[in-house]
């Protein structure tokens, strides 16, 4: 446990050298450090060093009431905050057996899917920036901005949304919002082919991403890879389908999967997922009923003693909140099983033997959010 602060990479005298990537580096998308043992341009071993953004979220949650902890949960993954707050409120609702009104279910799904598209758009722009293409970033941000405006309209915040409450929502949505969502879906569906025109068929992009960083199916299970990274390797595992929560079983959508397991496959999965999210949003807007937006729940949340595991498909993969209640107003144990943590743990394996430039392409294709890894 208290091992000396030396790295497992032995120093060598045959021309190999250590390269320190990060903790501040554009390619790591956050405060991540990777110690690389290099042989020229090739990586012999990679050792990710975590914890620069560690805030002890689990201890914080265990020392607060269920409602007080809610805004903290939304600050773990700042690009997929909706899914995180959904997991927290659903975990408590499951423990307490609260019912959620239909209208709230529809708005929750709509908000989470808009958030997923925004997250994938940012990934798309930033990933291509990693690979040296500058224009896509601006293109993606123009569309992402529209989603942020939409979500700001209902939640008041642009990234770390804290909009869901136990039993429903903090506030209702109005018809203006629903019309604007419809307009966005129509407009974005027309603009999506331009994304493909600009990048998907590009030969330089293919050279950088095809057959690079292949995650083999049996390795995925060993590391617990989930989300688009897993679906790029042939498994159509999506919590929204396998363990439907928050009414996802009422909407029709496909789970895109690719077989190759390389960076290009993960790219294609995310691109196809955005279309599916549009389909879900469209159905949610079309079928949203009138009625209450929040159920009557007790002011003080005191769940019965017990344990619950609430799994949610965030833009990055499977989030599980494991919560143990002892019947008091504070959770007695909270574990956040975050997708980026498991997805990043396979990086050392993928980077071995690769060119440094390819390792950055792999790191970007995993789409991790470091504050979520560090918690």
């Amino acid at each position, binding site marked *: *446990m*208290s*091992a*000396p*602060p030396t790295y*497992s990479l032995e120093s060598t005298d045959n021309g190999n050298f250590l390269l320190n990537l990060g903790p501040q580096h554009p390619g790591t998308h956050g405060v991540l450090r990777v110690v690389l043992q290099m042989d020229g341009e090739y990586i012999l071993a990679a050792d990710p060093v*975590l*914890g620069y953004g*560690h805030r*002890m979220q*689990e*201890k914080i949650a265990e020392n607060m009431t269920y409602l007080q902890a809610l805004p903290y949960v939304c600050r773990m993954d700042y690009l997929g905050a909706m899914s995180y707050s959904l997991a927290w409120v659903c975990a408590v609702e*499951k*423990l307490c057996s609260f019912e959620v009104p239909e209208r709230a279910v529809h708005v929750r799904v709509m908000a989470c899917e808009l958030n997923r598209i925004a997250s994938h758009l940012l990934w798309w722009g930033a990933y291509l920036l990693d690979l040296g293409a500058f224009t896509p970033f601006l293109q993606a941000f123009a569309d992402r901005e529209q989603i942020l405006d939409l979500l700001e309209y209902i939640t008041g915040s642009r990234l770390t949304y804290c909009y869901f409450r136990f039993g429903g929502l903090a506030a209702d949505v109005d018809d203006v919002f629903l019309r604007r969502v419809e307009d966005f879906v129509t407009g974005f569906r027309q603009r999506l082919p331009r994304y493909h025109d600009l990048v998907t068929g590009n030969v330089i992009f293919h050279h950088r991403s095809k057959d690079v960083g292949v995650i083999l199916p049996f*390795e*995925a*299970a*060993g*590391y*617990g*890879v*989930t989300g688009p990274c*897993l679906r790029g390797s042939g*498994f159509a*595992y999506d919590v929204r*389908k*396998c*363990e439907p929560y928050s009414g996802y079983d009422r909407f029709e959508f496909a789970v895109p999967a690719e077989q190759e397991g390389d960076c290009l496959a993960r790219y294609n999965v995310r691109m196809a997922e955005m279309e599916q999210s549009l389909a879900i949003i469209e159905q949610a807007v079309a079928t949203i009923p009138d009625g209450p937006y929040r159920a009557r729940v007790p002011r003080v949340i005191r769940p019965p003693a*017990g*344990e*619950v*595991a*609430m*799994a949610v498909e965030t833009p990055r993969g*499977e989030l*599980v909140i*494991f919560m*143990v209640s002892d019947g008091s107003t504070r959770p*007695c*144990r909270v*574990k956040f*099983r975050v997708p980026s*943590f*498991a997805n990043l*743990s*396979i990086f050392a*394996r993928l980077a071995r033997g690769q060119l440094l430039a390819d390792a950055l392409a792999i790191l970007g294709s995993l789409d991790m959010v470091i504050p979520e890894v*560090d*918690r």
Partner: protein
Amino acid sequence: MNSPLATALARIGIDYRPRVPAVGLRCSLHILPEQIRSLARSLAGEGFFIETVTAEDMPEQNRMDGIYLFNHYEGDMRLLVRVTVSRSRPHLPSIGRIFPGAVWHERETAEMFGITFDGCPDSRNLLLPEEATFHPLRKDFTGV
């Protein structure tokens, strides 16, 4: 019921009993530390993936539980495994050579709870500073 979960448990002589109500956990087990490796091997053979390794500290019962979550890519087969260890000298066998992804989870659990994972390929701190010897997720931890 011929699910991969039932098959994996049957191979090491554990009866599959689904949990009712499920609350996200299809099945929960309480096993001995020496069983965890054979269980992990059996689950890996059936294609299960590792979700997490963590622990729960219960000082009023003078008890600490190692907690494992496994699931299957075919979906909805989440298995919760609890392994009780002593609070004063907590030890668990590492499953890091069966599920390579478990190494990071074990490193985190080791630093947060002070549990030693025997045979873990890497025993450095993961999220805490390299030299930290305190265990923040123990209930009696009040700060440094």
